[in-house]
């Protein structure tokens, strides 16, 4: 799958993480800016979901399809679930939950890269 897409997502996740850490240090609850960053991240993840499935259908590679698609779908769900969880905690707990979500997204991107490359399952 298009390598630059992983890059875009990792950069988005990284920028969002920095934003969240800064506000965590300031002991602030989740801000509008965080949710905007999450929306951008989510759009990118949905694009990746579609691009990934199309790429999987076309590829000659030996990719474990079920694993790959389940990672794509899970990854697109994480920011949504994280955002809802954080809305229920208007304190630094909510900000922490967003940070946990964004770290998970980054981790899943790395796993996606591995699965597409055929390293590990």
């Amino acid at each position, binding site marked *: 799958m298009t390598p630059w897409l992983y890059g875009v997502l990792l950069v988005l996740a990284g920028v969002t993480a920095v934003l969240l850490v800064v506000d965590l240090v300031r002991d602030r609850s989740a801000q509008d800016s965080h949710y905007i960053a999450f929306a951008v991240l989510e759009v990118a993840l949905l694009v990746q979901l579609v691009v990934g499935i199309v790429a999987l259908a076309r590829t000659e590679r030996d990719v474990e399809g079920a694993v790959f698609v389940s990672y794509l779908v899970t990854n697109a769900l994480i920011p949504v*679930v994280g955002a809802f969880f954080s809305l229920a*905690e208007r*304190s630094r*707990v909510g900000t922490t*939950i967003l940070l946990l979500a964004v770290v998970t997204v980054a981790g899943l991107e790395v796993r996606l890269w591995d699965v597409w490359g055929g390293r590990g399952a």
Partner: protein
Amino acid sequence: MVGVPEPGVTQGNALSQGWGRALVFVYGIFAVAATGRSAVQLGMEPDRAPLAYSLSLVAAVLYLVATTCLLLGGRTGWRIAGVAVSIELLGVLSVGTLSYVATDLFPDKTVWSHFGQGYGFLPLVLPFAGLAWLRHTRPPRA
């Protein structure tokens, strides 16, 4: 104060509020991850590493139980969560150690191999966070 239930909030919900909500989020992710992993491992080649794969399944069940009990709350939920998280701690410590010492036992990885290295060592941190939270939310004696 973090995690102290506000007046009017029932004890039953306290487990999944405040920092408990962050814990539920992470436990939920691990429940999904471990279940997915063991489903793939057992579904594809169950005979390759029976021990590692059964442990993946055990981990999956423990994460599911812990997540559910945190969400359900109450005295019983608190107690069962305590048992699940304790077994989880034992599991990650023993499997983590064994995966370094007796490599031949684990031809394939589990969530707990090398103390959860493949998951940013979160599987090692999680039971400690869980036990600390349960200690914090200990229900008053009846």
